């Protein structure tokens, strides 16, 4: 049968699951005289959670920004979802950004739109001509509602974002990122504004999503223990340089001190 034959061909053409979605080699970013990143290497593979650890100012946010062309970076190689980030401009850069889902520390939802409307805004880049008159098609609405159910708050779809708790808002933000059908999710301090119990549940949700969607999730954190519990691999940054890279299990207290310095207030 032709259908099975085609399916077979597709399977053959698919890259092996281990090919990295993000390849970064020697990423450098400087703002004037200040060097924010000084030659950082990183790979992120489908299905894994990669934690970035470091003090504020160590370059975690700058590294994430460089993946979507939001920081003035140079690099030997910087590939995201098969595209050379540094070569993208205009529409191509917008298309690349649409492929990268973001989750923020302060959620960054539009507070007086409903939860489902916030999720729908994640699909704006492919909303099509229907959106010119200000609406979303019912296919998109069904997809958004399904995503809200996926993150566990389908019953709150009509609620204004501002009326939701912090943990619920971050779940809406994750659903919005998924609405982009992202090839990678970047989460910059996603749990720094949440209490510890909610922090754990949001991080395990991100881990489940990495596996289900077979995309890498990069999370910056400042609590070493959360990285140990919820990440597969860890990259530690200090003053713009990589000082640790390895599986989460290898992140010893000694390695943590290397990342945070001897005064080590690195959280329990």
């Amino acid at each position, binding site marked *: 049968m032709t259908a099975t034959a085609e399916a077979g061909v597709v399977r053959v053409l698919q890259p092996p699951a281990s090919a990295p979605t993000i390849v970064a080699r020697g990423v450098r970013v400087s703002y004037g005289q200040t060097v924010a990143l000084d030659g950082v290497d990183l790979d992120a593979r489908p299905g894994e959670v990669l934690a970035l650890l470091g003090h504020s100012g160590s370059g975690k946010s700058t590294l994430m920004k460089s993946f979507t062309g939001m920081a003035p970076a140079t690099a030997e190689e910087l590939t995201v979802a098969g595209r050379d980030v540094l070569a993208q401009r205009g529409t191509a850069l917008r298309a690349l950004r649409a492929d990268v889902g973001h989750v923020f520390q302060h959620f960054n939802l539009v507070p007086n739109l409903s939860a489902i409307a916030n999720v729908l*805004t994640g699909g704006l880049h492919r909303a099509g001509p229907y959106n010119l008159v200000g609406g979303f098609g019912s296919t998109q609405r069904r997809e958004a509602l399904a995503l809200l159910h996926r993150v566990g708050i389908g019953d709150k779809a009509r609620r204004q974002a501002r009326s939701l708790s912090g943990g619920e808002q971050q779940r809406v933000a994750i659903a919005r990122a998924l609405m982009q059908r992202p090839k990678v999710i970047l989460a910059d301090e996603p749990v720094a504004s949440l209490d510890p119990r909610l922090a754990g549940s949001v991080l395990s949700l991100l881990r489940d999503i990495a596996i289900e969607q077979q995309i890498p999730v990069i999370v910056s954190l400042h609590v070493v223990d959360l990285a140990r519990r919820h990440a597969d691999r860890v990259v530690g940054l200090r003053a713009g340089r990589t000082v640790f890279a390895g599986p989460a299990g290898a992140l010893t207290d000694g390695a943590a001190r290397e990342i945070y310095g001897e005064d080590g207030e690195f959280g329990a």
Partner: protein
Amino acid sequence: MPEAPTRPSPADATKDELRLTRAVQVPGVGGLAGVVAVIAIVAWSVAGSDFSIERFVTGMPRMGEFLVRLWPPDFGRFGLIVELLIETLQMAVVGTLIGAVLSLFLSFAAASNISPPWLYASSRFVLNVLRSIPELIFALMFVSAVGLGPFAGILALVLGSIGTIGKIYAEAMESVPSGPLDALTSAGASKRQVITYGVVPQASPLLVSYTLLLFEGNVRGATILGLVGAGGIGMELTTAMRLYDYGHLLAIILSIIVLVTVIDRLSAIIRKKIT
């Protein structure tokens, strides 16, 4: 190691804390200069504008006489008054609606977080010009362009509305938190989509509230436009004044007061509900 911030010497710190605990807080040099400047400006304005409490006091009896002559109100032509008040209200409704829509578009261009600098500067200039021209002047212009009647008044209200509210709309857009806008941009939304789904929803409670205030102002404004023949109750008001038809005049004024009060109350209730 994080660097220790430079602290004031302990002696300075205690002196500063002592000052903070005093019952009388002496304003700083800047504060004192501000007070002096305000006093100087008020004194200068009083001297220049021929302000005189004495003449006000001696003129009081004549004001009383005028008010006595107005009394009693004559509601003999109440039907006409109601008809003209309704026309005034209709002018305000249409003028506010069109004015608000045009202001909204102009305010996108006049908001610094949305608009490129050249567009920002030129639209701010247009708004400043519109704001510095009184509505009555617009009314005179439109009366000679489209003839006497309420249509000329509506056009005057539209331009007046843009002058009043355009800048305020623009500032409401500028005050919107930027985090959600960054999130939309990084999700691949276009500029137009960021405005539609990020800026406008966040600014909307303020926009609605300001529009209701504008409507209140336009109801009051529309009662005056008749002075130059641009429709509404103003024409009847001026005629009654010229003909010394005082009973009718007072009836008109009382009716205007009732209408404006009712509109103000309703609008206040709505504004309270939405914010």
